């Protein structure tokens, strides 16, 4: 038993040493790992190197408790082998405590306003499954909202997977690819505005041949992601060579998307506090939103028997966040092919299903499958 815990401790010590080397120069992580691996192989310990990298990847993903207890054990061993350095440890302890305090303060700040990397849109398969994208002729594209995040917008902390991952694992969607689009939407610093994001989004879909490779495209958009989607598709509608793309877009599902209506002034006030609208006065923001809605209404109005798509469905939240209903019942029926539906969630929770049994998930799924069936029947 002692031998086992000794070998575990040695493994953890190696892992901490490797992590310390990486922490000192994180931009050269791969080179450090490669050097470490070569050193262990030279020391006839490839198995140890493999085991270290394995436990490193697992502890990084598991609960901290087991890591912390193991770390304590390792620290105890190190101390017992190096007696007579108490003053050094006290000073080190004070330094560590100060760093922890600074770190905690920074963490609190970061949690309120995290520095986000520029997201990379990607297909969703599963962490555990590697399969080539564009296997199917149908694709569902998720577009997150303001202050959202390409992955976490769609994931409840208590759910086992995000909404896109649930779709990727849903047997009823086996003939659909799943793609998440993202853009930088920070609560501080500069970022592209809606028009710029919409142009970039449309350009990427065309560059990646989405409209050639997919017969049926479905958008699930949240909050400002809906405005971006509307803006992009309206742009297509304005250009002869791109207008046919709209018939590939079989349905748009808009969840808690700010829309035109009697309360648009309050929405404009809300968005004007957002960096994405930094340079826009509230009155300008109102005009801008109305322009997006007007163009989108034109897209829907121009549909007919020969060009029946895109279908569009709308849902909104009824519960406020911090006492404010971000997107209450603002929708008008001419911008939805069915009566807009209310869900008793707040602006964030409405796109975070707990499971495939969640009512928003089921409602959205039914709309997409309905639109797909309508596509197949030619109606």
């Amino acid at each position, binding site marked *: 038993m002692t031998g086992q815990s000794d070998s575990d401790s040695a493994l953890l010590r190696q892992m901490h040493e490797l992590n310390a080397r990486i922490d000192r120069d994180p931009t050269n992580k*791969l080179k450090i790992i490669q050097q470490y691996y070569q050193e262990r192989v030279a020391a006839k310990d490839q198995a140890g190197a493999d085991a270290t990298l394995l436990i490193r990847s697992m502890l990084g*993903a*598991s609960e901290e408790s087991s890591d912390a207890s193991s770390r304590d054990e390792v620290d105890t061993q190190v101390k017992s082998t190096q007696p007579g350095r108490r003053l050094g440890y006290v000073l080190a302890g004070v330094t560590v405590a100060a760093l922890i305090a600074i770190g905690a303060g920074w963490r609190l700040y970061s949690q309120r306003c995290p520095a986000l990397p520029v*997201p990379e849109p990607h297909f969703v398969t599963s962490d555990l*499954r590697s399969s080539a994208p564009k296997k199917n002729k149908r694709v569902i594209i998720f577009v997150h909202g303001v202050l959202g995040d390409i992955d976490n917008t769609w994931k409840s902390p208590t759910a086992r997977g995000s909404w896109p991952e649930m779709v990727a694992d849903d047997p009823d969607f086996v003939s659909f690819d799943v793609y998440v689009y993202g853009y930088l939407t920070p609560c501080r610093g500069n970022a592209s505005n809606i028009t710029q994001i919409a142009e970039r989004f449309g350009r990427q879909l065309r560059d990646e041949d989405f409209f050639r490779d997919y017969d049926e495209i479905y958008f699930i958009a949240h909050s400002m992601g809906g405005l971006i989607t509307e803006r992009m598709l309206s742009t297509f509608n304005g250009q002869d060579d791109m207008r046919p793309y709209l018939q590939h877009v079989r349905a748009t599902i808009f969840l808690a998307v700010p829309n035109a209506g009697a309360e648009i002034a309050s929405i404009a006030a809300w968005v004007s506090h957002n960096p994405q609208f930094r340079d826009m006065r509230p009155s300008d923001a109102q005009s801008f939103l109305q322009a997006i809605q007007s163009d989108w209404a034109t897209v829907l109005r121009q549909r007919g028997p020969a060009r029946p798509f895109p279908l569009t469905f709308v849902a909104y939240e009824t519960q406020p966040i911090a006492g404010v209903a971000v997107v209450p019942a603002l929708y008008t029926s001419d911008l939805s092919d069915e009566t807009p539906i209310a869900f008793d969630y707040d602006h964030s929770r409405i796109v975070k299903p707990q499971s495939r049994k969640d009512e928003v998930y089921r409602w959205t799924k039914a709309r997409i499958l309905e639109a797909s069936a309508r596509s197949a029947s030619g109606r």
Partner: protein
Amino acid sequence: MSPISFEDLANKTPRYGDALRALDGWIRAHASVDVINPAALAKELKSFNPLDLAGALGEAEHAGLLERRYKVLTPSGVLDDNEFEDPTKIPETLPDRFNRYFATADADVIPVFRRAALR
């Protein structure tokens, strides 16, 4: 054909017996999964000490039930499709699924496992 079953291996290595049985059950329950990501496995089998799960994976590899490969985590946080025998074989740049190359200098290296019988 594998020379030994997970159950045999669990009986042979009692320290990792429970973890090996859990690993076997997990693999059976995820028939469509062709790559086992240990980090995701640790998340799903939370009741097991990661050290035991790592030991179980290592034992299964040594017994020929699993094969180890190394992958790179892309900037977007998903595993790149390319696989390598060991970390020293990873090049300075790799193509992602859109054939756009990204620098691997600050990318993390993730060991993954494949079922030997499937290869």
